[in-house]
């Protein structure tokens, strides 16, 4: 699994917006890149989805881009196929990039284990935070620790996040 302080592997993946997106290009244009391994079908992802939209909205002006990557096996989980991703993104009005990792190579290279699983990269592509979005999937009003937001504030201020690693909570990645 990608460790804190390591450079993240590059990737080029197709997005639901019809564009191929590379990490190198995203890093060149942003102060931080939030990679979240995600999917359509997982109820934990669904529970956190509004907060993913809110984070992209709140940090877009500060040079942060959120990139959701779906690596799940779409044979066993057909609602995770590329067409369903496009539909989901349109229905929910995703303001973040939503990419398909059909080969699962990117998920393996990062060591993603769950959806959602967050990997926060600074402008140099170095991993600064890894884990969950916050500490309460079920109730956004009961969140005590906003791990990802806190880590973003630290990274944007040039500091190390207080919590660099938390446990990813969610569905397991559905490997082929």
């Amino acid at each position: 699994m990608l460790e804190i302080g390591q450079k993240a592997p590059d990737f080029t993946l197709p997005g639901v917006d019809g564009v191929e997106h590379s990490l190198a290009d995203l890093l060149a244009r942003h102060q931080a890149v939030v990679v979240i391994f995600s999917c359509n079908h997982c109820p934990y992802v669904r529970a956190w989805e509004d907060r993913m939209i809110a984070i992209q909205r709140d940090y877009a002006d500060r040079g942060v881009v959120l990139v959701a990557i779906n690596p799940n096996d779409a044979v066993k989980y057909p609602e995770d196929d590329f067409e369903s991703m496009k539909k989901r993104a349109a229905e929910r009005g995703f303001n973040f990039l939503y990419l398909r990792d059909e080969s699962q190579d990117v998920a393996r290279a990062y060591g993603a284990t769950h959806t959602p699983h967050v990997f926060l990269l600074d402008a140099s592509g170095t991993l600064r935070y890894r884990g969950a979005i916050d500490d309460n999937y079920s109730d956004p009003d009961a969140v005590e620790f906003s791990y990802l937001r806190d880590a973003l504030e630290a990274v944007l201020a040039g500091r190390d996040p207080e919590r660099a690693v938390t446990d990813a909570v969610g569905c397991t990645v559905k490997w082929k």
Partner: protein
Amino acid sequence: MRIHFLYWAECPSHPEAWQRLQRVLTELGLQAEIERIEIRTDEEAEHWKFPGSPTILVEGRDIDPTGAGLPSRLTCRLYHLENGRPSPVPSETMIRRALEAALKES
């Protein structure tokens, strides 16, 4: 009352669902015969018509009737709370309604 608590160990939502079930049973003062069944394979999921973890059957009936239309498979199950929010765990209200409905029918 007979309850089947079906779960897939790979999905982390079942301990919370189990606690909620226990709390509601205590609150209602119900004695129930609960069978905990771990679903391990696609075949077992098919046999139990298991739409995801956790699934709670009260007298053989799913506490969330929408489960009947879902495919059987090893996955985390999506519930919708009373406020419309998605959740991997059924609410205590949903559990309570199912238990109370079964009581009325008994």
